[in-house]
């Protein structure tokens, strides 16, 4: 076919697809039998509209009933607040209420307010209609959008019917938006974004909401979806930094199994956790995301790994780790939504304290550079949907960045294995530059932490988990011993390795001290229910003329007597500010909070 034929054929195809959506399900609609699922509506649709394979239980879960009752109570307060939205709502009150969850029935109004849609709509009257008109004539994304609309949220009742009303809306919003923001056009992932918005708002609102999410300062998803995904690579790097700092063992676990964060976290960043956590939780995250913006995504990514670190470190191949993070947690997050959100809130504070809550302002190429709503003449390749022969410069850069990330992780791992072989010898007499007593996975308290904050999981699981952890630990040690010819003391070298491989991130600086709550690995006891000691890691800068003597210390058990004297003026400050992980105490089968009374201890 020559160029003219190809262009004609593409325009015919566009015409055909648009017509199908315009016709909807009216008489004469061409719908293949496979495109329309048969379904049972009344018994299996949950409160958000999702249809489940099984019948939902006819009995009302008492906890759910209670939650619904609380939500109903909240509706009154919210209605009052909505009335006086612009004048009297204090920031603190809004924050508090949104973190508790916006009542589902009021999400449409509240989301519109949070995104300030009225303003942008009034400033752009007629634009949406104009964009749908332009899309009808010039869209080059019709085919891709069509194929994605056909598979987006099909288990949700409003998207169930092929060419049904909301499918039409989704198609319209996406094709129109691709015209409006031609720099992004349509990128897979955006159908999830607009798909959620359309569950709570009408077409035009969803169009503008998409625009605010892409270009509003707080959200700036533009850079995520744009060619080359510049924002994605920046946020992933930041995510890795956080992992490196707070969960170095987990990071190492990922590196060991060749698991780049891009492999498990893409949908976290691209669609704000849609289809990666249960929908009820996803909505709660969206509520907060709309209020507080992109730092919520960074914090939530960290929270998920923090809460499930135990489970993840038990998995020893990439396949099962990815499956756990992407599939299992979507089906069952294992913590109730309130617990997760509380944990998220703490994480946000924790990251703020470490100045890691945000990776900084967007780079130049993450910001829209083309004017919106101006028709750009598409290239021949775009029109006929032919791929470009070569990468653009931006794509090339992205490609290099992601490839480099993997190689860096691999190099770091190799380097580490070399280093540890060296430093095992060096630090045997505790005379090395840095040392720690830390035979743990970063902090083993993650599961325990959840249990005493009211998760659904029973206490019985605790003992199972704790016992299992010991075995996991020994497995890890064994395999390391095998692979890297380390002995069981290999962990001693971990801190030095951490410090070495934290290139440019200022992580684990000498002299810093990290609290490491962990379960009974270091002092195994008769029953796994015993309280776990807090182990404090101490990094002491090496100075050949003045070698300090340091003792490892934990919350209540001292492994080794502290030194009786320190050199004059040498003062070590132990600061424990990480009260996110209070060590749980088990008494009479119940878990009690145990808090550290003094957050700073001076050793003289």
């Amino acid at each position: 076919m020559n160029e003219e034929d190809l262009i004609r054929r593409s325009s015919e195809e566009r015409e055909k697809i648009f017509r199908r959506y315009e016709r909807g399900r009216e008489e004469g609609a061409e719908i293949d039998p496979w495109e329309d699922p048969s379904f049972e509506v009344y018994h299996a649709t949950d409160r958000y509209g999702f249809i489940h394979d099984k019948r939902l239980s006819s009995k009302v879960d008492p906890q759910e009933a209670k939650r619904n009752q609380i939500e109903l109570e909240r509706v009154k307060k919210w209605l009052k607040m909505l009335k006086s939205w612009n004048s009297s709502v204090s920031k603190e009150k809004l924050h508090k209420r949104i973190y508790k969850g916006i009542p589902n029935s009021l999400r449409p109004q509240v989301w519109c307010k949070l995104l300030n849609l009225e303003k942008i709509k009034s400033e752009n009257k007629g634009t949406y209609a104009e964009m749908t008109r332009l899309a009808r004539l010039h869209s080059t994304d019709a085919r891709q959008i069509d194929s994605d609309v056909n598979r987006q949220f099909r288990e949700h009742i409003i998207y169930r019917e092929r060419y049904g009303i909301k499918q039409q809306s989704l198609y319209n919003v996406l094709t129109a938006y691709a015209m409006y923001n031609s720099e992004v056009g349509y990128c897979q992932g955006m159908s999830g974004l607009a798909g959620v918005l359309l569950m709570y708002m009408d077409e035009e609102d969803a169009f503008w909401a998409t625009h605010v999410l892409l270009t509003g300062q707080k959200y700036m998803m533009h850079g995520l979806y744009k060619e080359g995904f510049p924002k994605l690579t920046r946020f992933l790097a930041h995510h890795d930094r956080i992992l490196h700092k707070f969960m170095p063992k987990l990071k190492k676990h990922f590196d060991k199994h060749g698991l780049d964060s891009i492999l498990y976290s893409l949908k976290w960043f691209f669609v704000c956790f849609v289809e990666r956590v249960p929908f009820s939780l996803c909505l709660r995250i969206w509520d907060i995301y709309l209020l507080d913006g992109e730092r919520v995504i960074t914090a939530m990514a960290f929270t998920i790994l923090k809460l499930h670190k135990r489970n993840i470190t038990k998995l020893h191949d990439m396949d099962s780790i990815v499956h756990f993070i992407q599939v299992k947690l979507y089906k069952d997050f294992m913590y109730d939504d309130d617990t997760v959100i509380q944990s998220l809130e703490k994480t946000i504070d924790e990251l703020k304290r470490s100045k890691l809550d945000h990776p900084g302002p967007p780079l130049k190429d993450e910001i829209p550079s083309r004017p919106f709503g101006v028709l750009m003449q598409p290239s021949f390749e775009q029109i006929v949907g032919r791929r470009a022969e070569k990468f653009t410069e931006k794509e090339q850069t992205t490609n290099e960045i992601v490839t480099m990330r993997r190689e860096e992780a691999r190099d770091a791992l190799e380097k580490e294995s070399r280093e540890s072989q060296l430093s095992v010898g060096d630090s045997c007499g505790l005379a090395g530059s840095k040392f720690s007593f830390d035979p743990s996975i970063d902090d083993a308290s993650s599961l325990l932490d959840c249990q005493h904050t009211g998760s659904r999981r029973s206490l019985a699981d605790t003992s199972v988990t704790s016992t299992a952890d010991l075995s996991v630990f020994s497995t890890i040690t064994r395999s390391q011993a095998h692979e890297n010819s380390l002995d069981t003391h290999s962990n001693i070298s971990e801190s030095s390795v951490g410090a070495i491989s934290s290139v440019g991130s200022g992580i684990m600086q000498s002299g810093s001290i990290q609290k490491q709550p962990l379960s009974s690995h270091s002092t195994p006891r008769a029953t796994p229910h015993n309280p776990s000691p807090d182990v404090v890691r101490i990094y002491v800068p090496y100075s050949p003329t003045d070698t300090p003597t340091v003792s490892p210390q934990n919350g209540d058990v001292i492994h080794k007597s502290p030194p009786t004297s320190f050199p004059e003026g040498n003062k070590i400050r132990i600061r424990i500010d990480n009260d996110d992980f209070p060590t749980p105490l088990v008494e009479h089968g119940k878990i009690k909070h145990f808090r550290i009374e003094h957050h700073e201890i001076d050793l003289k």
Partner: protein
Amino acid sequence: MANRTSAAQRPNGSTQGKICQFKLVLLGESAVGKSSLVLRFVKGQFHEYQESTIGAAFLTQTVCLDDTTVKFEIWDTAGQERYHSLAPMYYRGAQAAIVVYDITNQDTFARAKTWVKELQRQASPNIVIALAGNKQDLANKRMVEYEEAQAHAEENGLLFMETSAKTAMNVNDIFLAIAKKLPKNEQTTGPGGSGQGRRLVEGDSGAKAAGNCCK
């Protein structure tokens, strides 16, 4: 991941059948059924409305060939052009690739051809490439003739089958055909090594998978 290669002896000293591990990547236009093929092969399932793949997905499956167990590490990539820039990250070091098109859509076949070209130019020189004409169950809407695709496959030294993730037709077969064609030498190579699979032995991560196959 080279650590998965371990000594070929069990505690009792007996040697086991070979276990080879290969990296395989799926490429092709959006919505041709890449994820569905993988889902069918790995889990024996089919979803009419398979969610679109963002970035890439990773799964593993094991097949048995005589005395050799072949473990596939499967990278299922996103089809949209926008994600093309991430693709080399997945096909680098791959020992096998399945390039998928939809037999009811001529454009997807054209796209498949360009993927093959790209692989031949950029991927490991010994990569085994298979061409899969998917959605064979919709043969009444066929736009790509079997002979046309077969001719292209022959010219380029590709394995070729028409498949249907929906009916499971030829799905296991195409993976098996690839497994047969892959060199299963005694030597081992690290990840990213071209041509040869990494040989594993029962007792490490391969053991579980080995137990599952040969049913």
